[in-house]
């Protein structure tokens, strides 16, 4: 076989190898590609921003001597029992069904160890997760699979999910190979079917109805629980305004890089806007309502490092949520499974077939033998370690900017490396005072 690059062969930029493989796969099977993970295409992201450390005009804090606090209160607008988290990095909603019970437990253990929250997902709350999560956010989804008022009352907050970044406007899916008897029982479905979740809530349509739905949930929980509203990032400015008008205590905005357990590839890559573009829209909406920092903003979709955390907060987020990164911390895509990834046609760094339940790392599976590979205690330790590193990194950057609390980071601390990022994030292009679209 010849080496195409050495032979001077030219690959098409339009029909690259992934595109050719996709067309050939469609022609073979007659069905669209369903996969996990989030958008893989390159989009403007936090890497396109830089923080302006202190110098003559700003005063830095000593890295190992002066405090940089990290705590955050979520949901104190209307709820009598808001969440008080030690760090502003939360675990995003991921379902039991998409993940193994061991993985859910590990996420709860890790989050609890560092004083943050984790979140249920489509399919209800498991005892393992509730038992190991000091702060557990209960998702209220269109499918209402496993929706139980006792679980609602036992939750620490309620997240009404309107959409997610990987598929704004789309419902969930869980393919038959992951619908074990336990998953099927919790969802009241026949085992082994390809399960489709609804994309709209069954008993309300539009923001006026949502206002009444939020009232009902508050009444059921005696106005104790914070109520979040989660949207996939699209028309974020308007969606945030409507969510707040409907009574949300917290708004969660999930950008297009946010992960999924199973969605059509075409949906993941072609619907929604990047996280970077969504945050300023959300902050603008909150600021115009006079509620920025009063209705808290949680941002998710592609958070990987403490730098991402710091930059999201500088743009105006009160907290962030991680999903894909937490799975990687648990062992997803680890090189030690290279041989097993190869057997199922993948490789470390590329594995995204969360939908088919054959995850060698035992995370995105309901196969009991595979799931046993993940020790929830060890997994929890790894997640806690990772969350600590994110926090330390974010604190390092915040101190360099002279901030005694992560929430004190501000857009003025940021510049952009590209015109696109400057326009989306609404911060100046580095070395200039130019914010495209705002001043010319």
């Amino acid at each position, binding site marked *: 076989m010849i080496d195409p690059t050495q032979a001077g062969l030219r690959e098409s930029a339009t029909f690259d190898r992934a595109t050719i493989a996709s067309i050939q796969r469609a022609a073979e099977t007659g069905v669209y590609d369903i996969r996990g993970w989030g958008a893989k295409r390159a989009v403007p992201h936090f890497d396109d921003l830089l923080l302006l450390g202190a110098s003559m005009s700003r005063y830095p804090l000593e890295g190992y001597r002066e405090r940089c606090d990290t705590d955050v209160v979520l949901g104190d607008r209307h709820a009598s029992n808001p969440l008080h988290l030690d760090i502003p990095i939360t675990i995003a909603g991921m379902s039991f069904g998409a993940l193994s019970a061991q993985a859910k437990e590990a996420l709860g253990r890790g989050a609890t160890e560092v004083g943050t929250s984790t979140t249920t997902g489509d399919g209800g709350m498991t005892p393992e997760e509730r038992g190991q999560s000091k702060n557990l956010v209960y998702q209220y989804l269109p499918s*209402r699979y496993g929706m139980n*008022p006792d679980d609602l009352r036992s939750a620490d907050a309620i997240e009404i999910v309107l959409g997610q970044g990987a598929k704004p406007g789309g419902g969930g899916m869980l*393919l038959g190979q992951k619908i074990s008897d336990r998953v099927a029982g919790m969802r*009241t479905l026949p085992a082994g079917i*390809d399960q489709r979740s609804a994309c709209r809530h*069954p*008993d*309300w349509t539009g923001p006026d109805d949502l206002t009444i739905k939020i009232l009902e949930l508050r009444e*059921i929980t*005696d106005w104790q629980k914070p109520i979040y509203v989660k949207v996939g990032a699209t028309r974020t400015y308007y969606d945030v305004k409507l969510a707040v008008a409907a009574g949300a205590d917290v708004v969660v905005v999930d950008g297009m890089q946010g992960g999924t357990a199973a969605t059509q590839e075409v949906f993941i890559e072609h619907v929604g806007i990047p996280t970077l573009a969504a945050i300023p829209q959300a902050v603008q909406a909150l600021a115009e309502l006079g509620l920025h920092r009063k209705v808290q903003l949680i941002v998710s979709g592609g958070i990987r490092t403490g730098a991402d955390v710091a930059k999201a907060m500088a743009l105006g987020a009160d907290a962030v949520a991680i999903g894909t990164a937490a799975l990687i911390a648990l062992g997803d895509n680890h090189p030690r499974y290279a041989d097993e990834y190869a057997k199922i046609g993948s490789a470390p760094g590329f594995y995204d077939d969360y939908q088919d339940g054959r995850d060698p790392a035992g995370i995105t599976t309901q196969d009991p033998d595979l799931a046993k590979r993940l020790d929830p205690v060890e997994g929890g330790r790894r997640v806690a370690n990772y969350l600590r590193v994110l926090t330390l990194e974010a604190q390092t950057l915040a101190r360099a900017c002279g901030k005694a609390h992560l929430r004190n980071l501000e857009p003025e601390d940021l510049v952009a490396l590209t015109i696109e990022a400057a326009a989306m994030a609404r911060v100046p292009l580095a070395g200039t005072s130019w914010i495209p679209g705002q001043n010319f």
Partner: protein
Amino acid sequence: MVALNEVGAEKAVEELVKVDLTTTSVRELNAELHAPTARRYEVHNPRGAEAIAVGLHDAVDVEIHGPAGYYCAGMNMHADIVVHGNVGTGVAENMMSGSVRVKGDASQSAGATAHGGLLVIEGSASMRCGISMKGVDIVVGGDVGPMSAFMAQAGRLVVCGDAGDGLGDSIYEARLYVRGSVASLGADCVEKEMRDEHVAELTELLARAGMSHDASEFRRFGSARQLYHFAAHNSAAY
């Protein structure tokens, strides 16, 4: 409602408590019903208020005299609730157990996602009645609107009148019984044979609901189970 809460539980347990929503708020009413000091309640002058008697989890009797708004009796567990009037969207949504009886008509999404219990609507129900139902029994004395029993997973929906368009679209394992006409069936919903066991369960259900119809007058509908797995030839059905 302060006076209500001051009533000792031991003394009040068998008493009937009357609540007037012109002088008592829905918040005060629900707080009382979440920690009941009595076994029986009458609610007067609801005047279409939203979220009346939601999230109950004790075996109490609640009679609501007048029209109720959205989500009346939402997420009910164990309680028996009667509404002497019409109800708004989402009556008894996500009910787990107990019963809810509406002596009038119901708006959209009656009994949505409910897991258990019995919902009786003596009048008619609007669109999406029984949407995503997960085990509840729903008996409607009159008609149901379009897209009723959409994605219905489990339980039984009984319609003593007519059903609108798209009945049972994308239905899973719920069983539907209709006495009158069906405007059209949704994707993957088909008419099925009415066997003896179905006549028997329907007879029992009609009796529990207080309906006098003969079960043999009904037709049964359910899932053809053709959409349970993704397949290219089903693309027009999704």
